[in-house]
């Protein structure tokens, strides 16, 4: 085992003792931060879009649009403030924040003050993230032809920011069949936020008018539109007589298991690739025979697998450590931003799931690591490897596709069958765990996976020996596959 240790150590250090490794580790928080602030950056860098509504019906629908957009936005911001304040300090904090927010009964001018009152001074910009900033202005002209120069930027309108082009114009007209018609005129064909908002406002207005014409009072209409059933979700697996509503905490293990399955897949895929490239480097660099004459084949295989496993453990350890640190130090901040996220993070540290994850990672890594090592031993270049990798990549991709397409039905037949395929068990069974599969099924599928792992290791060792000594190569596999194809034909 001394040789295996030395080979593992060399393999491990060849990755970990490089700047590239630590830079790639650092890259993750850097990109996560960039990802986190990007919506705010986009928001802050997004230009204010000026639009006009030309009401040709004489019903003052332009004013209706303006008023409705303000009310809608106010309701959204109010709801968000209530949720955030509740996360920080419960109902009392929510009441306090809403009281401050409601000091401006018609607008959102008190948003920042409301959030500051519960210690969320920097959260205001998050509420605006992803929103299109649109300001309704008086139309500079009232016909499409006259408005075109303003929309194309040839002419500008006066705004608080100075002269600006018009982003869009809405014409609201009478329509013989539909009652009303909204014509949207803009040079931007992709942004649908504004168009959708105006359409929804006019639709609500038309429905209300229709109901009024049927003799209903506007207040009655509001009351009718607010009618909705009370939906309560209960977990049928809970004890008889105990009727607790299903909360996010109950759903968190499903999300965590799915997340772990994806992380497992990504980890297995990336470290198995490391083994492949390392093996090709040794084969191409003609080092492998020297190793074979110095250490037993088993020691080389085990050493390589352990070395690269060490790299992945380092990755997990660093990110696990960062995760624990962030959860400990920033728990309250996370709760402030998103209480569900904190619930999710807490569920990740479920020892049962983590142990299962470790077990599935070990088996998955050994199976795919051995396969990739064996493939690497057959190839002198990455180009050679690419031709062999195709089928293996498909085998590796399929469980992910199954999970993605069955994400709402983790107890479906496809998932059940997928979890029995030994090469897929590590990922599919991981995702299935929170559905409480029968114990016999879990143990049998795992046993089958362990046996397959041993067979794959044995087969990979045999291929490795042939490949390492140049008694077989990528062409041998292709010939073998062709022979198989001919025989079938």
């Amino acid at each position: 085992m001394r040789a295996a240790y030395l080979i593992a150590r060399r393999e491990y250090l060849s990755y970990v003792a490089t700047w590239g490794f630590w830079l790639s580790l650092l890259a993750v928080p850097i990109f996560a931060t960039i990802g986190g602030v990007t919506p705010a950056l986009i928001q802050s860098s997004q230009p204010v879009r000026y639009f006009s509504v030309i009401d040709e019906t004489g019903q003052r629908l332009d004013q209706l649009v303006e008023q409705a957009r303000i009310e809608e936005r106010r309701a959204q911001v109010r709801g968000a403030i209530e949720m955030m304040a509740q996360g920080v300090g419960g109902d009392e904090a929510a009441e306090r924040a809403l009281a401050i927010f409601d000091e401006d009964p018609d607008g959102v001018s008190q948003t920042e003050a409301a959030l500051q009152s519960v210690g969320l001074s920097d959260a205001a910009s998050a509420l605006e993230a992803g929103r299109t900033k649109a300001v309704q202005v008086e139309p500079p002209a009232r016909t499409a032809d006259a408005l075109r120069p303003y929309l194309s930027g040839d002419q500008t309108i006066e705004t608080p920011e100075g002269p600006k082009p018009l982003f869009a114009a809405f014409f609201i007209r009478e329509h013989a069949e539909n009652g009303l018609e909204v014509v949207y005129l803009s040079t931007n064909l992709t942004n649908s936020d504004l168009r959708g908002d105006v359409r929804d406002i006019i639709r609500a207005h038309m429905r209300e008018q229709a109901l009024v014409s049927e003799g209903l009072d506007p207040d009655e209409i509001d009351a009718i539109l607010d009618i909705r059933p009370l939906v309560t979700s209960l977990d049928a697996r809970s004890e008889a007589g105990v009727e607790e509503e299903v909360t996010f905490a109950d759903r968190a293990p499903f999300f965590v298991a799915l997340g772990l399955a994806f992380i497992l897949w990504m980890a297995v895929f990336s470290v198995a690739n490391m083994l492949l490239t390392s093996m090709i480097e040794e084969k191409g660099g003609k080092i492998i025979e020297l190793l074979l004459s110095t250490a037993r084949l088993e020691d080389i295989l085990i050493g390589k697998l352990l070395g690269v496993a060490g790299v992945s453990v380092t990755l997990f350890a660093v990110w696990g450590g960062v995760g624990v640190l962030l959860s400990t130090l920033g728990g309250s901040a996370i709760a402030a931003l998103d209480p569900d996220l904190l619930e999710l993070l807490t569920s990740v540290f479920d020892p049962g799931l983590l142990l299962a994850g470790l077990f599935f990672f070990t088996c998955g890594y050994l199976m795919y690591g051995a396969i990739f090592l064996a493939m690497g031993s057959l190839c002198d270049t990455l180009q050679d490897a690419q031709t062999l990798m195709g089928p293996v990549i498909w085998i590796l991709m399929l469980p992910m596709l199954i999970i993605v397409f069955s994400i709402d039905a983790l107890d479906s037949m496809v998932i059940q069958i997928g979890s029995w395929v030994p090469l897929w068990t590590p990922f599919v069974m991981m995702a299935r765990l929170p559905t409480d599969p029968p114990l016999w099924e879990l143990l049998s599928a795992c046993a089958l996976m362990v046996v397959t792992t041993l067979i794959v290791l044995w087969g990979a060792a045999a291929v490795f020996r042939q490949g390492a000594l140049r008694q077989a190569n990528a062409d041998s596999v292709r010939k073998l596959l062709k022979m198989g194809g001919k025989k079938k034909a």
Partner: protein
Amino acid sequence: MTEYALEVEGLSKTFGGKPAVQDVSFQARKGELTGFLGPNGAGKTTTLRMSLGVIVPDSGAVKLFGQAPNTKSMDRVGFLPEERGVYRKMTAEAVIVFFARLKGLSAGEARRRALVYLERFGLKEAATKKIKELSKGMAQKIQIISAIIHEPDFIILDEPFSGLDPVNQAMLEQVIREQAQAGRTVLFSTHVMEHAERLCDRIVLMARGRKVFDGRVDEALARVPRQVTLGASAGSNLAEVVSPMGEIETLAPDEDGSANLLLTLKPGVDAQDVLRACVQAGVPLTRFEPRRPHLHDAFVALVGEDAVETLRQEA
């Protein structure tokens, strides 16, 4: 205690139905320098790989230090494979220490010896440089050091001279001599006969997967028919005098008209017998040049022209 570092008995190996090695037996006696010769494709590398347990033979047996190859006996072997390379991103010292530790040396001892050997090979300055920064010759020296750093009892070198320039070939010959003088058993394969001729006590000659000779170098040379180039003044009876002593091949005459011939001696006749006969017969000799036999001639005599042609094409 066996007197052999390596004993190979009836080794055979077939790849894809094509025999690579057929019934090969030989021994490497402790303390001797043995050459393993033959053209490319003769089965040398496959035999050496089987000798080290890297490839399992179809039939036959191998003994390293009197027992089947195992981790313990392998630690007493230093091997330089034909297909060789080192980790390009590691420093010269780190590569040597890595292989030394794989052979059982402690980290401290491996580092100490690495520096000693690097200095001995004129590579002291290269110790902290990455292999990719070194020349090909320097990298090959690192590989050689890696093979002998643990001061093994038995050194196997597979085509050690290939890829080296003449200066480094001479350096490697010196290293091999030093290792042999230090009492180590050395077995090296080559298809360049001159190296074996200069270095070896014994040779094993291979051709087309079979052993064709196994013995001392002088025994191999004894297989080569002796030849003498003779010249005599025009009109002499040189051919008549020497014809009973061997086969005559007429060569082009000199500018002054002197006749020249190549005499391939019959077994039991040597060059002195020819000289004596010419003097006694009063032949006016202008040339008398006994040809010194080489291993190449022995190889031709043992293997035949076809294999020699293959060797010529592959060299």
